[in-house]
């Protein structure tokens, strides 16, 4: 974990909303799936923007960025050779899959990002991947595709046939990342079937390193309800421990 000076080697527009930005970062190969960097465009006044590792090859980290506001927009405007501060890798990775485990990935929108690297990093894992998005711009390669507007794949949320699927298939673990409401629904639907649901949560961040308690998420523990930090204790939490209705 260090505040690296990253060098942009490529910035590719995938569609109106998404870019994939490739950044050369010292020791980046140490990053594991589920971890993220806090990026900062040099000379920009803004605080940092947490972005998941989407892929790593030869110390070049790829970030999949969805434009939602000024900060993400700035990221997509970076050009080759621009420098960018990259603090990380931060947070904890998803638990590595075991050989005999059936993993079900459920991703929504830009929640797709961390699983691309997960799948690449664990080539032998048994993975089934459902992905959902609002429309065709929010959809990427997966085993089953959902869109809210039905423009591609199955019309509906990524949870549309989850209950049925879990009734008919053996799933040992669920890994999920996406809007909070999606992950909450997944936890509600899936917990009767699957104990181990790893959710990658989002919260506004300030420090990114666990000192400010800004990125809090309420979880059940042996000691009662406490706030843990997404940046240091997370971003991965068990679906069963998160207090979803906070």
């Amino acid at each position, binding site marked *: 974990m260090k505040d690296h000076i990253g060098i942009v080697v490529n910035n590719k527009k995938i569609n109106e909303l998404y870019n994939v930005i490739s950044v050369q970062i010292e020791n980046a190969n140490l990053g594991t799936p589920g971890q993220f960097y806090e990026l900062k465009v040099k000379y920009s006044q803004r605080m940092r923007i947490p972005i998941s590792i989407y892929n790593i090859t030869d110390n070049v980290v790829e970030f999949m960025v969805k434009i939602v506001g000024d900060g993400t927009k700035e990221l997509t405007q970076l050009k080759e050779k621009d420098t960018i501060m990259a603090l990380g890798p931060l947070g904890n990775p998803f638990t590595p899959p075991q050989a005999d485990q059936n993993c079900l990935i459920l991703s929504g929108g830009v929640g797709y990002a961390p699983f691309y690297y997960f799948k690449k990093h664990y080539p032998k894992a048994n993975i089934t991947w459902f992905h959902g998005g609002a429309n065709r711009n929010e959809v990427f390669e997966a085993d089953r595709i959902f869109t809210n507007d039905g423009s591609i794949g199955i019309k509906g949320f990524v949870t549309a046939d989850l209950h049925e699927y879990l009734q008919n298939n053996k799933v040992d673990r669920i890994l999920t990342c996406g809007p909070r409401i999606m992950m909450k629904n997944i936890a509600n639907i899936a917990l009767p079937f699957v104990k181990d649901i790893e959710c990658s949560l989002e919260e506004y961040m300030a420090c990114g390193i666990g000192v*400010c308690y*800004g*990125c*809090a998420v309420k979880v059940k523990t042996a000691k009662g*309800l406490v*706030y843990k930090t997404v940046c240091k204790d997370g971003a991965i939490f068990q679906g069963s421990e998160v207090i979803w209705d906070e």
Partner: protein
Amino acid sequence: MNRLATKLGKINFNNPITVASGTFGLECANFYNINKLGAIVTKTITPEEKIGNPTPRIYETECGLLNSIGLQNPGIDEFLKYHVKEYKNFSAPLLVSFSASTIDEFAEMLIKLEKIDYIKGYEVNVSCPNVENEGLAFGIDAKIVYELTKRLSKLTEKELIIKLSPNVTDIVSIAKAAEEGGASSVALINTLLGMAIDWKTGKSMIKRGVAGYSGTAVKPVALQMVYKVYQALSIPILAMGGIQNYKDCLEFIYAGASMLSIGTAQFCDPCLPIKIINDLHNHFTQNNINISDIKGKVWGID
């Protein structure tokens, strides 16, 4: 000669740069040698554990930061049992920030803290805006600040810093009350009160509604208060509020600061305190000055 040498009421520091309570943790040791700091200030500790405020707790505005952490901390007993030790092996002087709801509670906490010899002083937080009836109620009333300080100053020989709220009509009267009560220095400013609303939906960006406002935006306010307090008091000032670089530090020193805390700006750059120390060192060397040459020496005022 160490040009950066400075002091508060009772402690000498190698340099004037420390970190604002609540914006720093030992995790920062991953980024730089913490012993290079002039001092270390802990996150505020309270008598009992606090789980903190509901989320969202953080929101970045155009030129500042809103936070509503709610003094999340393990409570003093847990702090003394597990956490304080982690600070033991650092040579930078340790200042513990603490807060409570009654004068008695403050005093009890101080008595417990006094047992730890490597704690070199206290930053008494009477000014946190993010908890009800804790801290802030004190910080807005000169009489209570006087009583509190009088009580605490009798219980310790160590540096006793009272950290003041900017959300008051007259910060000078409150700073004076701290001085008269026996504080060895004052710290200012804690966060202003602020709010942000999502213009599209009307949703408050912070769950508690009103939050603490810090960062670049508050610097002119902080500077003004440091200036006024310096004019009126004779104890030293630990200044903070929107410091982003060594130039901001110089502004505060000219206004009257003896020492400076870096807060929000660390979230943009965790190594900032060290960079600022280096930049200050270079500036002082190039100009052949030290802090006392410029402290409080703002001019051109009519």
